[in-house]
């Protein structure tokens, strides 16, 4: 009886998931494995993937670099917030979330305005009599866009874990002879591993599949797998290939998060969001 009630209550969500996630997934799978012209079953779409392996590699590389930069930038921020007074914590938490209230597209476009050839930075530089820099269209700009957009996804899970680390554990470590550095490396860092893993996942997953950031801030050599997929649907009109690429990307993301989860589960027993 109780079980049925729970099922009934979760019904709307399950229905939603079926209509908007499971069925589209099936459609992706269907297109990925059928011929564009005849609609017959084929593995040809997947064969073409080899062509896009370098792009896939670039995407993974960019996502990993962004996630790591986010970790290095985000950890001290999360640590700082977690050690403020409760009210200050709330305010800083809100401020961290604030950029997320603005459209992702707008935020990326704003960077275009800052970085472009006649953008804010170059105008300033030339105004000061300095040579203009080539900022937009570079890998650096793409990474910058990713880090800027996804940094909150790193800070928030880290903060959530660090704030829960028992003060007494830190005192216990001091009591047992740890100086500040040792307290951090032997207690705080190991205990924040679940937050680190979930932060890395939450940055890596959207970063590896993004297309907008690379299109606006990147150049020809920073074409990412997300761009390729988008192109298949919008311009090349080859949704079968697009679907096949999507499928592979999805599997890749699943494998990556799976590895991270396994790593976290074995080492620290942490839960990755």
């Amino acid at each position, binding site marked *: 009886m109780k079980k049925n009630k729970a099922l009934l209550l979760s019904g709307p969500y399950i229905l939603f998931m079926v209509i908007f996630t499971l069925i589209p997934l099936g459609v992706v799978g269907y297109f990925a494995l059928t011929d564009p012209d005849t609609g017959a079953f084929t593995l040809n779409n997947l064969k073409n993937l080899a062509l896009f392996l370098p792009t896939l590699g670039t995407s993974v590389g960019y996502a990993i670099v962004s996630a790591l930069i986010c970790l290095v930038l985000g950890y001290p921020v999360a640590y700082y917030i977690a050690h403020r007074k409760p009210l200050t914590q709330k305010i800083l938490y809100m401020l961290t979330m604030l950029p997320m209230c603005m459209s992702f597209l707008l935020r990326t476009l704003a960077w275009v305005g800052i970085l472009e050839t006649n953008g804010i930075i170059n105008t300033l530089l030339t105004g000061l009599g300095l040579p203009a820099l080539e900022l937009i269209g570079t890998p650096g700009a793409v990474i910058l866009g990713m880090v800027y957009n996804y940094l909150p996804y790193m800070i928030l899970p880290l903060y959530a874990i660090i704030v829960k680390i028992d003060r007494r554990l830190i005192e216990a470590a001091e009591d*047992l002879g740890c100086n500040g550095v040792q307290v951090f490396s032997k207690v705080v860092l190991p205990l924040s591993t679940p937050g680190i893993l979930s932060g890395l996942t939450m940055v890596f997953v959207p970063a590896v599949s993004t297309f907008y950031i690379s299109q606006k801030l990147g150049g020809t050599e920073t074409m990412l797998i997300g761009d390729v997929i988008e192109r298949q649907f919008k311009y090349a009109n080859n949704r079968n290939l697009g679907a096949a690429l999507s499928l592979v990307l999805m599997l890749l993301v699943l494998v990556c998060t799976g590895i991270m989860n396994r790593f976290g589960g074995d080492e620290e027993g942490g839960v990755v969001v």
Partner: protein
Amino acid sequence: MSKELIRLQDLVMEFDGERVLDGINLYFNDHEFLTLLGPSGCGKTTTLRIIGGFLNPTSGKVLFDGKCINEVPAYQRQINTVFQRYALFPHLNVYDNIAFGLKVAKLPKTEIQERVQEMLSIVGLKGYEHRRIDSLSGGQQQRVAIARALVNRPKVLLLDEPLAALDLRLRKDMQNELKRIQQAMGITFIYVTHDQEEALSMSDTVVVMDKGRIQQIGKPEDIYNEPKNAFVADFIGESNILDGIMLADYKVKFFGRTFQCLDAGFAPNEPVDVVIRPEDIDFVPVEQGHLTGTVTSVTFKGLNYDIIVDFKGFKWLIQTTDYQAEGTTVGIRLNPEDIHVMKKSEYSGMFGDYSSYSAEYDELVEDADDEEE
């Protein structure tokens, strides 16, 4: 006794202008089991944290072996702590928790192994090396916490209500265990608790604290038998506390009657507090009694009955195995050794009246204590 190890000098601690410790002067001897005893917010944990190096006193000094250690950080003190609710590292197993301090000190691997194994057998956890902390029971976690502190062979072990989270039975076992370990290893134990029975049964010396001040220091027997003021008398065990007048040495008057007592050294006719322990009172037939009263409530407590007797409007608690029915008129006799006379203090009149006695009183107090700090 043995030599002095730690001395606290005029220790004052203020948090946001609120005075938590108000001039603590205290010394601890080597190999001593000393207990800081008091209710929530009396400053006992604060005192312990200052000794451990987790708090800096607002003023005053902490001397260790005669040297001031105010500026020495916690990690450089030869002191280890067993924290309230243990504070074991959840990411390490039992072995690594216990080995933590030794690894930080970079001892050779073989020595670490030897000392951890030795500790494991002392606390009775052999074979638990690879267990996760969260798979242990409260009592086992407690023992890991003790082992983790003692393995470093500190000169002093601080224990902050280490048994508060355990059930009664386990608490009794661990009390004996702790006492045994302390005697076997010859380490100074500074123990903080709000449980007077625990304090009395384990300690060499008990320090009773309230409102950031030391109320009394002494051996457990002395604290119980010769409380200095109404607070101590009430906090350590149950007490009936009455207003009296010290007519002369060995003569005290209360309830309009003069009694012989064993106390002296008061001014003639000095108003005093008179303590009568509930278990010291015996019922006698009414005609033989010094005082007669009416039984108003009887509660069975297992070992004895708690009987409330109304003497002319002032209610006493009497603990006896001698059952009396409610409503009976009873007589009591008081022998000189049953009467203890104390000087008046700021606590006079606040304690020792059982007019509002209820059987649940004890449990309510314990619940409130659990939420402290």
